[in-house]
């Protein structure tokens, strides 16, 4: 595959910190817009819910938890519990997971120079699904281990992909890793499907997990994944300029002083840790990792320096809104979050494909 946009980035300074006044502006505006959208999404997410807690009670329930404020609220204990222990952790968790998936997707698209890449490309989802399925079919006593098993499964799958995809010299090229990822995902999914069919009585639980389980989000989930997401986000943000260099092609990047294989390894490691952590508590939520980066790219038509951070914020906003839909559209029923994101994501993705083709005559 050749780079599609060499004219935009070939001359970008990579290693130096030479100032670029026009693009500084172009980073700031999308960031501000995305942050604004995120704030609105978060406010909507916190203030709307099937329990119908009034806005003043919702605000009161939140303010009583602000230290040193000593606010008293008329909200009942039940309403306070609903807002603080059920709704808010769910909004926060959706935001973290959305941010992680979007940043992971954007980074993978850059590092593999493939617009179809998403954070599940190298087997995280298949591995996490297998880990979760093993715990579910092993019996009810192990349910505490579910996030751990999903995390280990997700990380293990990517490690396996890298081992399989590495050339004899121990170096791994982009395409060989991608193919290894496809094979590993197929293998692990086959095992997962076998286990699930052998234990049909647990089918419902397995499916519920696969379709996404923000329904039972709690603060402990937030605390569990926050360190991984934070480290992962930091590393991905730090490498976003490298992704722009990789767009010119591996050989050209090498001549510019960037080691593509090393960048790929660091980015994949960081994205895998974060994605596996997110998936371990949220289940497999699809399409966020594809639509958020592409939406940002379409809107800003800019480089990874902009796309990675803005997608991160946009992905958080998108998943918060998708989850709001999941819990309110058919209230008091839940719609699986994975269904909502795919339902919105699939048509959007088709739109992206068509518009890209229209603009560039490719794909």
């Amino acid at each position, binding site marked *: 595959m050749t780079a599609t946009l060499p004219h935009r980035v070939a001359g970008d300074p990579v290693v130096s910190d030479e100032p670029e006044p026009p693009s500084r502006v172009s980073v700031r505006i999308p960031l501000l817009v995305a942050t604004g959208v995120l704030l609105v999404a978060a406010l909507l997410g916190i203030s709307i819910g099937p329990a119908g807690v009034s806005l003043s009670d919702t605000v009161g329930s939140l303010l009583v938890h602000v230290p040193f404020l000593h606010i008293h609220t008329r909200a009942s204990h039940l309403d306070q519990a609903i807002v603080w222990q*059920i*709704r808010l952790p769910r909004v926060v968790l959706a935001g973290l997971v959305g941010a992680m998936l979007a940043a992971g997707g954007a980074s993978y698209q850059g590092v593999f120079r493939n617009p179809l890449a998403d954070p599940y490309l190298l087997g995280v989802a298949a591995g996490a699904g297998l880990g979760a399925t093993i715990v579910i079919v092993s019996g009810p006593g192990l349910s505490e281990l579910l996030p751990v098993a999903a995390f280990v499964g997700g990380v293990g799958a990517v490690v396996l992909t890298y081992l399989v995809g590495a050339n004899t010299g121990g170096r791994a090229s982009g395409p060989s890793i991608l193919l290894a990822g496809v094979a590993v995902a197929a293998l692990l999914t086959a095992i997962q499907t076998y286990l699930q069919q052998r234990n*049909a*009585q647990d089918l419902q639980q397995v499916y519920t997990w696969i379709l996404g389980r923000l329904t039972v989000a709690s603060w402990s989930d937030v605390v569990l994944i926050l360190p991984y997401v934070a480290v992962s986000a930091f590393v991905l943000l730090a490498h976003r300029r490298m992704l722009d260099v990789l767009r010119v092609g591996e050989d050209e990047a090498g001549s510019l002083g960037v080691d593509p294989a090393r960048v790929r390894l660091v980015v994949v490691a960081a994205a895998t840790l974060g994605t596996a952590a997110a998936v371990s508590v949220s289940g497999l939520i699809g399409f966020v990792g594809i639509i958020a980066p592409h939406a940002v790219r379409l809107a800003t038509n800019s480089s990874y320096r902009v796309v990675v951070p803005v997608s991160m914020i946009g992905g958080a906003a998108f998943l918060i809104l998708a989850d709001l839909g999941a819990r309110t559209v058919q209230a008091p029923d839940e719609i699986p979050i994975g269904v909502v994101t795919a339902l919105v994501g699939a048509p959007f993705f088709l739109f992206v494909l068509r518009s890209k083709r229209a603009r560039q005559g490719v794909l």
Partner: protein
Amino acid sequence: MNKHTTRRLLAAAVVIPVVLALGCTSSPTAAPAAATNTAYPVVIHAANGTVTIAHRPTAIVSLTPTGTEMLYAIGAGAQIKAVDKNSDYPAGAPITSLDGNSPNVEAIVNYKPDLVVVSDDPAGFQSQLSALGIPVLEDPAANTLAQSYQQYLQLGQATGHSAGAQTEVAHVKAQIAQVVAATPKPTTSESYYYELDQTYFSATSSTFIGNMFRLLGLKNIADASADAASSGGYPQLNAEYILKANPTYIFLADTICCAQNATSVAARPGWSTLSAVANHRIVPLNDDIASRWGPRVVTLLQDVANTVKAQRRAPAA
């Protein structure tokens, strides 16, 4: 003869006079366990269409746990050759590795069955069995007690135990009526949340279990479900909705699958504010019994009624 059969026979001895008095038995001389009061071939109009059974079956394969329980209850246990891996009741049923959810036709045929009882038709395997000349009787998950009674009678007809089936139906009816009669009516509105797993899947009143609970005058919080039809009566409820509904009772049908109990429910974030938690109205149920529509529905109803009675005699503050 196992304990279960003995109990059924004793129960039948009590109930038969009732049945006779009601005049709803076709064969007054029949004794449930021994009778072959059916003239073969019999034609049954079941969920899977018209089923013709040429001879009294003596090698039944049951791939449905509820069907297995019903067969034993009507006295056809001795004719059962194999049951599926989930048919864990009554003790002594010839349990095998057969899987009713993903059945293997060759494995079933291996038992040389002359009747196969199923609750659904995954991957269209019924037509394969029919092609081999093996009659298949489908008794799908019942939504009402009336539907379950119908299934007893069909199984009775198919196996030559019509009288046994009628006796069992009368027995279940009488016991349910007794439990309901012995339970005081609610003085205030009482609601419940019925939990199928710890991600808040529930069952509405349109389901079999929901119908049972309605007999005791309980309101189901899942009935507010926006689109009960599309969820098949088993919606996934929203956590904050459950909290806001603040049900009088919480019934846990996920004690086996998901190891839930009163302690684990009370420990969920925010759930300690619920009155059912504060008043100890969390009722653990046996998942298996609660998911079947066979003879043990009486046990289930009795468990629920005991809790409800305690609440209604001493209403919580």
